[in-house]
């Protein structure tokens, strides 16, 4: 396997595997938020703000994987 192929493969694996956890996490977050809103629709404003905040922090982990794969593709090693 030459270097270019290895980097392409690594980049794909990095974001592919790195997106699994945050995907599950964001699903759980939205599940909880929707259940909370369903139980008490009056709090939807507060729940929504906190949900977006939580989603942003969860998404940050996928972003680290994205950074790694972007570096693998675009930055010369």
């Amino acid at each position, binding site marked *: 396997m030459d270097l270019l192929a290895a980097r392409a493969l690594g980049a794909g694996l990095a974001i592919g595997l790195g997106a699994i956890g945050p995907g599950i996490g964001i699903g759980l977050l939205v599940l909880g938020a929707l259940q909370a809103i369903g139980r008490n629709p009056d709090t939807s*404003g*507060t729940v929504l*703000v906190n949900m*977006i*905040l939580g989603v*942003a*922090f969860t*998404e*940050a982990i996928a*972003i*680290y994987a*994205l*950074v790694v794969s*972007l570096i693998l*593709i*675009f930055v010369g090693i």
Partner: protein
Amino acid sequence: MRKALTIIIAVGAVVALCGPLTGFLYSGGLGKSPYGALPVVSLPAEAIPIPWFGGKMSNTFFTTLIIDALLLLLVGLGLRHARRGDVRPPKGVLGGMVEMIAEALANFADNVAGQRGKSIFPLVATLFFFILVGNWFKLLPGAESIGILEKPHLANIPAYAPRLIELGPLSFYTVDGTHPVEVEHSDGEAQADTATEAHAAEGEGICTACNITPFIRGVATDLNFTLALALVTMALVQAWGFRSQGLRYLVKFINLPALSKGPIGVIEFAAGLLEIISEFSRIISFAFRLLGNIFAGTVLIFVMSNLIPFILPAGFYGLELFVGAIQAVVFALLALVFINMATQGHGDSSHAAPGEAAHA
């Protein structure tokens, strides 16, 4: 209700009209017909020549200038309205939309930050409008697809033979997707090449292996833009923290008072040190969240326009409208929340936050 219906119809019309046109221009003509070329995916911004002055600037910087001009125009219109002492709600679609968005943001700031919301709101609204206009600007038909015909600067960009198209009085060049050409990268000739290729668009001399460097490119597809926004935002968060708490703000990071509490205090001190790392990771996640989402959207439309060039890209175009707005909201909201967290002291944060949330 009627307002919402108008907006939905307007968005639908934009998607139906601009979506296919954007896809058409992206694929360099009628898709898989002779003009269709592979998309250019380049993370660094491309350089375009500066008119009249010479030299080069990046196309994202050029787009930023246009967006700045647009936003200043918007501010000017609003100021003219306000100077006249008008307190009536603004008329027209544009005024109504800006007012609606600003009102929603102001309510949001009030809900999250309470008393402090009024002082935080201007920054949050600025960030929101800047990012929103920046994200939507790249969706205009012609953005990221009309540009200079020149030899690609990077090795991994495909190059094609140029093709002249004449439509009545109009004549322009596009790339011929069926004729990929190998680029010979020679460093010695690089200077001479850029000089001749600058004139290529005017028809004096044409390159043999070309691709198109767009004039306008989405600002958030450039890490320089998103990183600058993230740095400014996080610097302002610290500034807000110092302004509202003075030097006590530092206790959040270097928790010396906790050390006097014995063994448990040591753990609190270490947690304070971790806060420093989390501040820096916020810069990274701010910058790369925006970059990743918008850059991925650009690539998505590129690829879809090449696969199925006619109707399908309109759907993804609608998705990109949505993503652009959501990312602007997320950036503004996170800035708001971080500033709010910085203004609340270490001690009173646990009491104040739920109380304010309950009022919201």
